[in-house]
């Protein structure tokens, strides 16, 4: 395991290639999938809908969280005065 | 007459009455004080054990008078020696019999002077006290009721404290003055009932309302003084304070109960309409007594006086329970009579034990003995808590039943429960003065007198207190068996009361007296 990680650390381009390849594979596979089992209109009619949804979801969560954190919710480590 | 009685094959009640008298006679001819002590202890113990036969053989179904005996006494006036017990009296008889041996034990070393005479007085007292509770002939009742005064007078007057003369004379005069009119009422009733003194014969007659009220007033004076109800109570602190321990115990545990017993046995059944008419006054006097007793007890520095005034408050609860005239109230009152006998008797014994050591009844002198008398204060704590009606102790059960009955009484009358609410400060005051005493005795203050020489109570004293504690907890945790004994009689009493009330009111309200 350790070696595997170190190997990828040493070869970041390879790692990136595998990563994007996998993503591309998933998207392509999704275009071939029968979407008729989808629950809603968007699933049925937007190609690779879940990819878009997943990506946007993450963006929303990440940026909302950041904004939330910066909006004053984050206090010093010893805020409650251990 | 016989339809009211259930005769027994063995004259057990007479045995209970006369055994102490026999002991007194025997002691007259015994010179050794030690033997006298043993003889009296022996006889009272036998009486105590025999009294338990009553419990065993008591029929809880019937409302008749059981273990009855009858003999002609003064034939020309139809005065008979009739005795018998029912649910109202049984517990009192048994309590009297059970307490006496402890009174003798408590006097074992307390009384130093003229022991023999003291014991004879106690024996005569026992005869009279048991007799009062079992007498079914009014003259027999009255004779024993009054005869009790002499030995009690002597007990206070000879073996009492510094102000014994004042106390004993006051006790005697007060109680006798109260009962003089009782005699007149008795004779009037005799005259009204075709010349019969048999108590059950006198009950549930529809006397004219005016006469009933007069008779009630006579009864009330006699019994209220004995209870004692506010404002007829002032003999009590004096007598209690000066009496020797055994005398205080007898006074508190038994003599006071005769007043409330009198209300239950005579006032309610004989003059029901007057009872209904005058009930509000008695109830508010009871409330006044509860609160007044509480306040005065709080101000006392003399422990015996404190307990004496607390008795005024507690007996106020009993009269309250009796005169709300419902089942919970009356049963609670009867139970509370026993409870008060047990707890207050025990408290007086406790004070007596302190007195034997410090020769003072002042709270300040007894302050902080808890440090040196751990066993003693354990007992004292239990009895004090019982006295203030702590849950789990006997008084709680009694006071709770009475208060519940009072609420019911108010609610049935369809008004705000003023009466029950008015009684509650009394319960709070009870906590205040009892805890004040307890705090002083156990811890005291910074300036406690030196008591390092005081010894804790000895085995004899533990033997005296332990049974009281036993009953405190037994009645507190499981009052059922006791209530079973009194249930039938109380139910019958109340049934008759409601039945005869309506009749007579419609008939006699307008009748002149």
């Amino acid at each position, binding site marked *: 395991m350790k070696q595997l990680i170190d190997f990828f650390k040493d070869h970041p381009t390879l790692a990136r290639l595998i990563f994007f390849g996998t993503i591309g594979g998933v998207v392509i596979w999704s275009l071939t999938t029968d979407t008729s089992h989808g629950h809603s209109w968007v699933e049925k009619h937007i190609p690779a809908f879940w990819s878009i949804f997943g990506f946007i979801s993450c963006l929303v969560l990440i940026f909302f969280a950041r904004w939330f954190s910066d909006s004053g919710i984050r206090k010093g480590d010893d805020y409650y005065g251990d | 007459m016989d339809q009211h009685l259930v005769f027994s094959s063995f004259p057990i009640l007479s045995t209970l009455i006369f055994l102490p008298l026999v002991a007194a006679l025997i002691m007259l001819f015994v010179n050794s004080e030690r033997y006298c002590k043993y003889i009296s202890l022996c006889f009272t113990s036998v009486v105590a054990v025999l009294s338990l036969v009553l419990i065993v053989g008591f029929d809880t179904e019937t409302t008749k008078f059981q273990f009855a005996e009858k003999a002609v006494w003064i034939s020309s006036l139809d005065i008979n020696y009739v005795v018998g017990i029912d649910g109202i009296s049984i517990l009192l008889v048994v309590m009297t019999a059970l307490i006496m041996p402890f009174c003798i034990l408590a006097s074992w070393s307390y009384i130093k002077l003229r022991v023999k005479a003291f014991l004879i007085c106690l024996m005569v007292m026992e005869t009279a006290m048991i007799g009062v509770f079992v007498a079914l002939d009014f003259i027999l009742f009255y004779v024993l009721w009054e005869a009790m005064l002499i030995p009690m007078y002597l007990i206070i007057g000879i073996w009492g404290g510094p102000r014994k003369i004042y106390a004993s004379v006051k006790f005697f005069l007060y109680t006798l003055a109260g009962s003089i009119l009782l*005699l007149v009422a008795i004779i009037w009733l005799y005259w009204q009932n075709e010349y019969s003194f048999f108590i059950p014969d006198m009950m549930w007659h529809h006397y004219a309302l005016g006469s009933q009220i007069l008779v009630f007033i006579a009864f009330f004076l006699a019994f209220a003084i004995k209870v004692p109800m506010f404002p007829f109570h002032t003999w009590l602190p004096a007598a209690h304070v000066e009496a020797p321990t055994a005398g205080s115990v007898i006074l508190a545990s038994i003599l006071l109960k005769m007043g409330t017993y009198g209300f239950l046995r005579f006032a309610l059944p004989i003059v029901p309409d007057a009872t209904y008419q005058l009930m509000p006054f008695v109830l508010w006097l009871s409330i006044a007594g509860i609160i007044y007793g509480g306040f005065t007890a709080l101000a006392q520095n003399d422990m015996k006086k404190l307990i004496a005034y607390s008795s005024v408050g507690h007996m106020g609860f009993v009269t309250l329970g009796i005169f709300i005239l419902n089942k919970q109230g009356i049963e609670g009152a009867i139970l509370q009579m026993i409870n008060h006998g047990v707890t207050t008797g025990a408290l007086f014994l406790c004070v007596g034990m302190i007195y034997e050591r410090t020769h003072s009844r002042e709270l300040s002198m007894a302050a902080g003995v808890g440090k040196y008398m751990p066993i003693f204060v354990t007992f004292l704590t239990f009895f004090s808590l019982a006295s203030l009606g702590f849950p789990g102790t006997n008084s709680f059960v009694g006071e709770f039943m009475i208060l519940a009955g009072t609420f019911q009484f108010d609610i049935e009358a369809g008004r705000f429960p003023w009466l029950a609410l008015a009684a509650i400060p009394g319960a709070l005051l009870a906590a205040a003065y009892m805890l004040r005493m307890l705090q002083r005795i156990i811890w005291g203050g910074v300036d406690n007198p030196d008591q390092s020489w005081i010894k804790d109570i000895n085995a004899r004293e533990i033997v005296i207190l332990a049974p009281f504690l036993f009953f405190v907890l037994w009645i507190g945790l499981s009052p059922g068996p006791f209530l079973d004994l009194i249930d039938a009689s109380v139910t019958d009493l109340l049934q008759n009361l409601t039945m005869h009330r309506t009749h007579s009111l419609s008939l006699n309200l307008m009748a002149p007296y």
Partner: protein
Amino acid sequence: MLLFLPELIILISALILFLVSLGTPSEKTLRNIVLCLTGLLLLVTLTCINNKGTLFFAAYQIDLYSQLFKLLIAAATFIVIVFSGNTPGIGQRIRAEYYMFLFTGLLGLMMLVSSVELLAIFISLELSSFALYIMVPMRQSSGAHDYHLESGIKYLLFGVMATGFMLFGMSYLFGLTGSTYLKDIIPSISYLYNQPAAVTGIIMVMAGFFYKLGLFPFHFWVPDIYEGAANETTSFVAAIPKLAAVALLIRLLAMVSVDGQILVNLLLLCSICSMFYGNLSALAQKDVKRILGYSGISHAGFILFGLLTFNLEGYSNALYYTIGYAAMTLTCFLTICAATPNGNNLKLEDLKGLHGRSPLLALTFALGLFSLAGIPPFVGFTGKLMILINAFKQGYVVPVILAALNTAIAIYYYLSMVRLAYCSDDSKESVMVSDGWSNKSLALLLVLFIITMGIFPTWFLDMAATVIGATV
């Protein structure tokens, strides 16, 4: 002759004592003689109890009623003689004479209970009174007090006045009915109630007996004489004449029937006044004999109250009460005499610590007082109860309540005596108490009698009813 035997014995005794008084008998001899004579008298009255007959032209009636009273009088005298011991209150010199007069007085009282004719009544009453007039001042002067002479005079003057009233009344009765025999007067007087003269006559005749009994308003002599006379004399005066007076009063009251309502009311008033007067005044007293004197007034009121029901039951109750009263009073006087061996008066404070000096006497005294106070189970209570019940039956509700109130008042002074005897320990000067075997046994006897009579009154009441029923 046999009918007159008790009186004869007394006469002879008086003569013997007269002879003895001529010599100088020793204290002991005299006492033995007197004891023998009284004992003999008691025995004789006992044997004569069933005699019946009339003497002196039917002016003197001997029946169970009179014989019973004679027996009671004899018994009471015997008791007084026994417990007065060697009569320390009377001077050694005149002791024989004293006893002679005592027997003379006794003779008068004995005759009184048998008299059924006005003149006989008068004579016997005077005989008994004159003897007492002399006995009262015969007290040995001790320097500390000289009341005895004064009280003797008072007694005499008062007695004379009462006698005057009585004679006056008797003349009225004789004038109205033309007879001096009670058996004639009684039926004829019952038609004359509307005549003031008759009522006045009756009242005035009764005055003599009120005087003997110490009833309001003829009671004023009582405390002074009780205090002034020697203890022995007081004991005698307190118990014995009252028995005789009650006996005659019962006979006389037959004259007054319920029809004479006004008369009854007046008598009732006297009775209630006696009770209140006696009890209230007693509260303030310091001398034991004086207190007992006042208490005697109130008890006399009670006895009259019993008589006023005018029925057999009432009479027998009154008789029962009188016997009981005699026993109770004698019990108390026994203690007084025993507690004062020097013949002095007994002050209240002298009672202090009596229970330490003589437990038995103290107990006797206390029980006697409790009985007088009307505490159960003694005869005082039972007697009062009977009287009150009977009065209630007659409808005297208010007097019953007043009588009951009196009981409450009376308790205080009785109790204060008990209190001193029992509850105070310090006795500064401890006067010797003479409690010889005779006193002790007598005390026990009296206490037992009081208690027995109180607890088992039936026999006594039945007896009284039988006796009175036969007469009235």
